[in-house]
């Protein structure tokens, strides 16, 4: 096999970046130090809700090493704006969402435990922290609205006066009248109340920032843990007003995981870059894990009531959903979009459901902001749909696989009642492959064998779909987005023929340095080692929208393809000139330019060198140089889909759920690097298992204190919580982007939870159990079910 073939598209190339990471040679924000750097510590609210009567910093200012102390007053006096939500959702009565101010540092009210009250900057972190203890804040503690179920009641404490009943928006999607008509003619209606638990992201690297200001040039620089440095720069300049865009450089160097939590523009990073100019010294801040628990945007947190209408043959007629979605105390950067356009639009699942109507109330509570977390809205939709389908199967007595087959969408494109137009898919192929892999037919025998060993065995299916490749700019613009969601790329060919690719995508674990290079190397016929992927610096990359929503392959790589096409066109022109042939007669293959039908040929590096020597280029026809850029705006979302099937065994004595088999069959379209894709699926499933069985962000309902503020109580998945996964792939090519890619980063987190809970409820013989299905909850469910079973 040639080098290109070993390194090309579809090959399991080892990740180029891993040597640097596993040998400790990565450069994360906290690894970077700037001359005369100071350290910031944030004094945070101990109350879920309180009025600040006064802040006395006089003693703290005298403490050793203190360089400066900043409060909300300083921010307000400087005319700095607050943090924004970049997506506007409109309520069903036509009014825009109701947004309370989101100050960088609290001015007169704190609204969650961990809210930012003051920033202390000192020579060392220890000095900053010690000084912060000397700040006297006179709080008037106020009642807090903590619980999602009661925050809309008239007597609940108010988070923002702008939003009565703590309701930010009352949004709807779908056709109410058609849905009601569908229910009117239904032979059966299946109803279920569902909770989607609150999650805390826990990227391995906590958030960090270094803000600095160069007095000579007036340029601000922010090193930060961002999934989208250009968007951070845009928000900081256009909305917060830290500095004009051209005077602000944002660098997101190596970033250790994001899972959505590093999309958002937060107070701490903003305060560091703003205050650096006030102090005239760089300011560094790195969150400790406790701060991450308190102040990173959390994920999910829904209460839903769903009803599914079926005809006598088990065919779905309509779906009706009412969801209350927690937004936390303030709207985070994309939080309004997550429980609306990233959720309601996926409620058709893989099924032909003629009528769907969903209502979502986005509500404020005195808790940390809630925003996108791996999957973002789509796990919530999949959980609801797949729990409903499973429940329908049990109530109708139709086999769960069969009821899915009866309702699968089978012709494409398919317009759902909730905006999305599915472009391609073969849902039965994935389901059949998954059932084959798990030996679905043999389940009954395994169940009875488990019963002999005193174990309860259950099986659960999740046929999921997600909308990725986020997103067509016109589409999201019409739905309320404040930005377009295209991507950019620039390909710079050096005289010696090696290549730098500048991308607006940002890798924080995804392996772009490998996969993007595989694409470029195979297109140009050069070794992988001759391609460098550059990302994460607003001074290098002109603009980019960043990485989230499984978009870097489908959107980011498509932009690279477009730029490569331009490179190839220009290189052919140069080759034609050098070989004195017509450009139409030049072919480019395996790194060589050939005049068709002749033995005249030039190597890639000969042409790249000629591009820069430019000797004898016909003036006006060929410019020197070989560098091209492109912007790619997707024509549609992409629709990864597949089937995950899970088998569990439950120990009825302890309530421990063991996942004994987990099969995932995914259709991601074209796959660049199967090893990296499998890693993504593994990681996603691990997080899905975390949500289903282990993880739960809990606030005390009375005090609003975060109960799960450390790993002592917040249960992160560990290796021994996970089974070995059996993976498989089916393939329908995505028709809306040049490589046919769909995206793979979120599938596991989206698909796994309902598969697991369907298996757990199957094993227990109950309708529902709240996630996470902890041993205590499973045992409690068995106790509640036992008297009933005994009575039967």
């Amino acid at each position, binding site marked *: 096999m040639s080098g290109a073939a070993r390194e090309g598209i579809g090959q399991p190339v080892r990740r180029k970046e891993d040597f640097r990471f596993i040998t400790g040679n990565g450069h994360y924000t906290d690894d970077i130090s700037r001359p005369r750097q100071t350290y910031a510590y944030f004094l945070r609210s101990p109350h879920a809700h309180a009025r600040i009567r006064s802040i006395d910093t006089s003693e703290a200012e005298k403490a050793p090493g203190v360089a400066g102390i900043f409060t909300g007053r300083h921010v307000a006096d400087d005319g700095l704006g607050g943090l924004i939500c970049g997506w506007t959702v409109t309520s069903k009565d036509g009014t825009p969402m109701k947004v309370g101010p989101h100050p960088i540092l609290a001015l007169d009210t704190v609204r969650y435990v961990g809210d930012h009250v003051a920033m202390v900057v000192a020579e060392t972190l220890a000095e900053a922290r010690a000084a912060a203890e000397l700040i006297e804040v006179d709080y008037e503690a106020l009642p807090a609205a903590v619980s999602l179920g009661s925050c809309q009641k008239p007597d609940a404490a108010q988070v923002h006066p702008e939003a009565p009943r703590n309701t930010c928006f009352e949004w709807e999607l779908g056709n109410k009248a058609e849905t009601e008509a569908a229910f009117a003619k239904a032979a059966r209606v299946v109803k279920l109340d569902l909770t989607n638990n609150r999650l805390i992201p826990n990227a391995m690297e906590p958030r960090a920032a270094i803000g600095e200001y160069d007095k000579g040039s007036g340029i601000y620089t922010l090193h930060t843990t961002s999934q989208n440095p250009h968007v951070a720069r845009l928000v900081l300049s256009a909305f917060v007003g830290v500095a004009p865009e051209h005077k602000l450089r944002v660098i997101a160097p190596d970033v250790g995981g994001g899972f959505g939590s590093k999309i958002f523009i937060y107070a701490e990073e903003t305060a560091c870059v703003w205050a650096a100019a006030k102090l005239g010294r760089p300011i560094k801040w790195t969150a400790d894990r406790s701060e991450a628990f308190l102040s990173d945007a959390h994920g999910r947190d829904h209460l839903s009531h769903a009803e599914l209408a079926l005809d006598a043959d088990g065919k779905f007629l309509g779906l009706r959903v009412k969801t209350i979605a927690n937004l936390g105390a303030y709207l985070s950067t994309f939080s309004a979009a997550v429980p609306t356009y990233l959720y309601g639009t996926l409620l058709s699942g893989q099924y032909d459901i003629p009528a769907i109507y969903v209502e979502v109330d986005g509500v404020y509570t005195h808790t940390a902001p809630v925003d996108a977390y791996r999957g973002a809205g789509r796990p919530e939709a999949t959980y609801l749909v797949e729990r409903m389908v499973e429940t329908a199967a049990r109530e109708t007595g139709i086999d769960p696989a069969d009821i899915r087959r009866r309702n699968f969408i089978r012709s494409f494109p398919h317009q759902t009642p909730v905006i999305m137009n599915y472009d391609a898919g073969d849902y039965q192929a994935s389901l059949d492959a998954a059932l084959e892999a798990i030996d679905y037919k043999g389940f009954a025998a395994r169940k009875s064998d488990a019963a002999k060993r005193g174990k309860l065995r259950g099986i659960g299916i999740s046929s999921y779909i997600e909308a990725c490749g986020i997103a067509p700019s016109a589409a999201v613009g019409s739905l309320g987005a404040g930005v377009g969601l295209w991507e950019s790329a620039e390909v710079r060919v050096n005289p010696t023929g090696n290549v730098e690719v500048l991308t607006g995508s940002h890798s924080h674990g995804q392996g772009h340095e490998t996969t993007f290079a595989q694409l470029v190397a195979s297109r140009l016929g050069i070794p992988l080692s001759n391609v460098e992927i550059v990302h994460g610096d607003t001074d290098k990359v002109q603009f980019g929208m960043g990485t989230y929503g499984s978009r870097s392959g489908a959107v980011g790589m498509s932009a690279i393809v477009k730029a490569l096409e331009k490179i190839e066109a220009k290189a052919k022109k140069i080759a034609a000139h050098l070989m004195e042939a017509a450009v139409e007669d030049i072919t480019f293959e395996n790194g060589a330019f050939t005049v068709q039908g002749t033995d005249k040929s030039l190597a890639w590096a000969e042409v790249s060198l000629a591009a820069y020597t430019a000797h004898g280029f016909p003036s006006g026809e060929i410019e020197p140089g070989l560098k091209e850029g492109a912007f790619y705006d997707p024509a549609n979302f992409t629709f990864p889909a597949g089937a995950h099937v899970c088998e569990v065994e439950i120990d009825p004595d302890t309530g421990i759920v063991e996942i004994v088999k987990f099969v995932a069959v995914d259709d991601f379209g074209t796959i660049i690097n199967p090893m990296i894709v499998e890693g993504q699926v593994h990681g996603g499933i691990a997080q899905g298992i975390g949500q289903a069985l282990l993880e739960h962000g809990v606030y005390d309902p009375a005090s609003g204190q975060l109960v799960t503020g450390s790993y*002592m109580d917040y249960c992160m998945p560990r290796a021994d919580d996970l089974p070995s996964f059996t993976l498989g792939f089916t393939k329908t090519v995505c028709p809306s982007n040049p490589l046919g890619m769909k995206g793979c980063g979120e599938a596991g987190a989206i698909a796994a939870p309902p598969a697991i809970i369907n298996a757990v409820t199957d094993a227990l013989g109950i309708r529902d159990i709240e996630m996470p299905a902890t041993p205590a909850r499973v045992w409690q469910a068995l106790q509640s079910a036992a008297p009933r079973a005994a009575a039967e």
Partner: protein
Amino acid sequence: MYQFNYERPKTLADAEALLAKSDDPKILAGGQTLIPTLKQRLAMPSDLIDIGGIKDLDFIRAEGDAVMIGAATRHAKVAQSAEVKKHNPALAALAAGIGDPAVRHMGTLGGSIANNDPAADYPAACLALDAKIHTTKRLIEADEFFKGMFETALQDGEIIKEVTFPHPEKAAYMKFRNPASRYAMVGVFVSKGPWGIRVAVTGAGQNGVFRVKEMEEALAKNWSPDAVANIKLPAKGLNADLHGSAEYRAHLVTVMAKRAVAAAG
């Protein structure tokens, strides 16, 4: 961390002298609880007396019908000790199941029992194995040592030197781990030996480790899992939190006791 003076004495006598002259000292052994507490600024000792440099406290010795373990002996060493495995395999297994490898290579026996965390494993072993706790001042029976959550019979300035574990005839420890912290949510140590029969429970009780007399009596009549299968603890006095109700913990005590008896053979 707040500032403190750090001392690393070479002998017990030096450690005692340093303790006597400090305002508000803390003894640092393996530091698996104390260091995180200091980092979170939840403690502000004037002096940290690190006993890790006292070689006399780090040993495992089998003599007669008992194993003697120095207070500063790390869990990993206990877990791997041929002597402990031979004479008291349940104790070796317990040590092998504390925390994770990093914790086991730092944490010490003395540190664990002096801290008396209600979810720690060693207190259950001490109580169930009728251990003798030797300090710089006296010998304390395990039954007298554990006084309640984070409370022991130790007085100011008193340092644990070693713990004597008499060999059991039969013993086993079964732990139900808290899913998040992996500490014992319920740990049950059962034993049969010269002291008779003991059942000690850690993790579950609001006042730390305790014995279950009813189970001990039932096992004295009939050493079998069935003997304890129907003995249910009252939920009163047991911990209840996010991870499980008091009723659940009471139930788990029975389940773990049953399994421990089965494992002890």
